[in-house]
């Protein structure tokens, strides 16, 4: 880990961000907008910042994205 990484990890994202609970609440909608090629950042403000600052939520976001990508024919 170099100094830049240390700084980024310690200080987290610059802007306002969602809480973990709000992130979980919005996660499904956010990921569907991402996969549909929409604009998730304006649809769910503060989500991208939280995913930058919270390693656990970021992992779960990545997993949901990958799961839906791997099973694109799965119904609603």
């Amino acid at each position, binding site marked *: 880990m170099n100094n830049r990484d*240390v700084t980024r990890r310690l200080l987290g994202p610059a802007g306002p961000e969602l*809480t973990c609970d709000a992130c979980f609440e919005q996660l499904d909608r956010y990921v569907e907008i991402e996969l549909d090629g929409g604009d998730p950042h304006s649809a769910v403000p503060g989500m991208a910042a939280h995913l930058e600052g919270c390693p656990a939520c970021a992992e779960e976001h990545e997993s949901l994205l990958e799961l839906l990508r791997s099973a694109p024919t799965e119904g609603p």
Partner: protein
Amino acid sequence: MSDQAFDWVSALSAGGREQDDATRRLHELLLRAARFEVNRRRSSLDGSVDVDQLSSDAAHDALLAVLAKLHTYRGDSRFTTWAYKFALLEAAVKVRRRAWRGREVSLDADAWTRIPNLDTGPAASAESSELMLALRRGIQEALTPHQRLVLVQVTLEGVPIDVLAERLGSTRGALYKTLHDARRKLRLRLAEQGFDIDSGRKEAAA
């Protein structure tokens, strides 16, 4: 009936055979998602861990969570996407906790001073060394012991927040709030000292 039209919420509260069938289908979906997650993170587990059991426990807990939250589903996403996230969360938390079982996590707020992570040595530029020193001092002087502990363990030591929450008898949400407050304090302090944090440079004194 196509999946597009399948009304999960009604079926899962219909009672009788219809509800049983829907619950079974839901459980299958959750189990698939839980297996997907456990497999993704398999390398963090040692060979003795029963990954099938872990997946099935996660799917079971996710089923209970989905049924308990069913009334909150607003149709903002497909029902399956909404349900999947519960299985992924349960599985991810279980894998993290299992992977860290038996590993020591220092709960000493001052353990960070022994970490050589804040590189101020000759390889670091003068600017960045100055920022590192300010960070170190900020952590020491501006944060409470609890904030220091959470910030350092989660961001520098890579302890998963769920694992730390378990050890401290807390929750992810509460610890993230602590982390967030600690970051705000540090940012404020560095800004007061004239650091332009997001470029990593210190501005000329105004």
